[in-house]
């Protein structure tokens, strides 16, 4: 079975637990995050009402997910964008490859959804140069590692190691002072932004009625990516569509305090169609200073399946703030090994639906179902309940650890999980 004494997952867990450098990175991040979030929420008493409102918006949106996705596509087409609905990861990759073609310079801002479909590999295989421009993603890309947090993908890499990575990139010694590390990335990537043929972003929310994409960020890279190259492709999950602009604004206000402990992120870009002008004889021309083409890929890839399950559909409400990860006692010690692209308890559900059962079959047994995630989630998503539900489904498909099977046998035979004989008094 999948629980031999040293299955690959246990090994990965042990490596993480024993890796003091990665633990230090996460510990520093947890301390900074929790302090910032507490301070931000103290200044936002209205958030209590807001997050309840957002929960209602998500409940409505998910109950109409297919319909809203179609409405968003119509709206995007109305403003001369090109919408696509990708059923699965392979279809999404095909769509991207046909738009991008080959021999192109591609810049990307952070998008978990693009990682979900393994986009970079596909674009590179088609002969394109792809640069991640979010600092964390850039570091991970250079180090050829996997992201370990949905908001701060390089949370496990301490500054000293970032310096080593950058020194290698530039072929000269780089100081490990954090501002100068940021400076290195800025210098290096600026040139790529201007020369890129294609910019790829995600979208945190989409308003169905107007076809508007909301892209939330702090670094300013997503602005470059979505604005400088002649072609902008955005990819997002169909669960990100909400009915109206004002619904979307509420989501936008809720995310940043829980994601990074700020009142609002530095930049929220609203993109409704490609750039245009009608300044000469009132004749509309697409492609003014911004992109000439806007392509929007709405991804299903298991989401409709998720929506069919009365319990697991709640995972579709997730805003991806990542707050529950920092607050998860298991994530704090096993970090990026606790999931596959999506992490922690909520990540178990997402990884299972988007990457398959195998991706979580062993890792799910590391969840204590303690429920801290639900407690800190702005939408109070009942993660432990979903994890138990998912676990039940996995067990029915044969994914049961030997230890847990033994416990059942012991209970059935001896009346206790330990297999002790006690019926003698």
């Amino acid at each position: 079975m999948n629980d031999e004494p040293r299955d690959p997952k246990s090994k990965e867990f042990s490596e993480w637990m024993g890796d003091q450098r990665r633990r230090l990175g996460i510990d520093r991040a947890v301390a900074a995050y929790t302090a910032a979030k507490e301070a931000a929420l103290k200044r936002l008493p209205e958030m209590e009402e807001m997050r309840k409102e957002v929960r209602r918006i998500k409940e409505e949106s998910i109950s109409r997910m297919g319909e809203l996705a179609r409405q968003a596509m119509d709206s995007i087409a109305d403003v001369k964008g090109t919408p696509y609905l990708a059923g699965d990861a392979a279809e999404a990759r095909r769509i991207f490859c046909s738009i991008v073609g080959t021999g192109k310079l591609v810049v990307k801002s952070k998008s978990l959804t693009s990682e979900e479909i393994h986009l970079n590999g596909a674009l590179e295989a088609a002969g394109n140069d792809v640069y991640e421009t979010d600092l964390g993603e850039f570091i991970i890309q250079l180090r050829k590692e996997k992201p370990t947090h949905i908001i701060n993908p390089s949370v496990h890499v301490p500054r000293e190691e970032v310096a080593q990575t950058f020194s290698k990139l530039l072929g000269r010694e780089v100081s490990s002072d954090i501002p100068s590390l940021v400076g290195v990335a800025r210098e290096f990537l600026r040139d790529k932004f201007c020369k890129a043929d294609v910019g790829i972003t995600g979208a945190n929310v989409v308003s169905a009625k107007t076809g508007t994409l909301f892209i939330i960020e702090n670094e300013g890279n997503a602005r470059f990516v979505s604005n400088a190259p002649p072609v902008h492709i955005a990819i997002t999950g169909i669960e990100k569509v909400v009915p109206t602009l004002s619904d979307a604004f509420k989501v936008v206000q809720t995310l940043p305090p829980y994601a990074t402990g700020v009142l609002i992120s530095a930049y929220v870009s609203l993109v409704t169609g490609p750039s245009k002008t009608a300044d000469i004889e009132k004749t509309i021309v697409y492609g003014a200073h911004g992109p000439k083409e806007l392509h929007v890929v709405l991804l299903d890839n298991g989401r409709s399946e998720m929506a069919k399950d009365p319990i697991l559909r709640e995972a579709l409400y997730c805003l991806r703030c990542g707050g529950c990860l920092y607050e998860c006692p298991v994530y704090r010690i096993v970090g990026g090994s606790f999931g596959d692209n999506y992490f922690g308890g909520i990540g178990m559900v997402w990884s299972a639906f988007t990457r398959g059962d195998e991706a979580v079959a062993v890792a799910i047994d590391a969840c204590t179902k303690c429920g801290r995630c639900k407690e800190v989630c702005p939408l109070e998503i009942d993660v432990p309940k979903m994890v138990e539900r998912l676990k039940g489904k996995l067990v029915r498909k044969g994914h049961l650890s030997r230890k847990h099977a033994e416990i059942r046998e012991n209970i059935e035979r001896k009346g206790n999980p330990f297999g002790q004989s006690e019926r003698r008094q």
Partner: protein
Amino acid sequence: MMAMVGKILYWKGCMSRLKMKSIADSTEALLGLLGVDYDTLGGEEGCCGSVLLRTGQYDAARSLAILNADRISSLGYSELVTSCPGCFKTMSSEYPMIIGRAPFRVMHISQFLYGRRAAMEGCLHPIRARVVYHDPCHLGRHMGVYDEPRALIRMVPGADLVEFKYNRSKALCCGAGGGVRSAFPEIAVEVARGITGAPLREAGASIIITSCPFCNYNLKEAGGAEVIDLPEFLLRSWRGS
């Protein structure tokens, strides 16, 4: 069997019955001092099925729930008191969903003792120590029992009850629950160190009081603190030793 109506069943739970016996023993001693008329099922108690529910073995858990509910009801018990928050949560909130009705009243030992606190007044001797209460997930966050254990601890003269920075609904998990202790014992104990390390130092307590045999076991495994079950602590105070 009818003679048992109204009698209380003390359900120890597998962990307190077999691995952490001092929890069950001290609870029984305390119940005795309080003059509570109760029974146990001894070696026939069996398992409530919590661990099966937590590890996705729903069908096996369901059979067990039906079996236990029938057995306990047919013995005539209408009230059950348990040391284990896992049994407490499972039997009080999940059995009714599984079998479609609440078979009997289930109380956690902290709730039961709180109800009988008057009988402890004047009997408790001082324990001069700074103590901190660890909220077990199944008792606190899942079942909302936060105040009873604290009120009981405050009854002990001399005990200075302090709080962890993250307590009550935000309490840190000990790491043992959900089948993690059996699947990944090294993760479970490392999670527990996340309590017995910096948070315990910050709280400045020398004793961790908890009210769950799994938390107790796991926090002891992590080391660095004296860990004691709530009734055990009350018994120590009663006996003045």
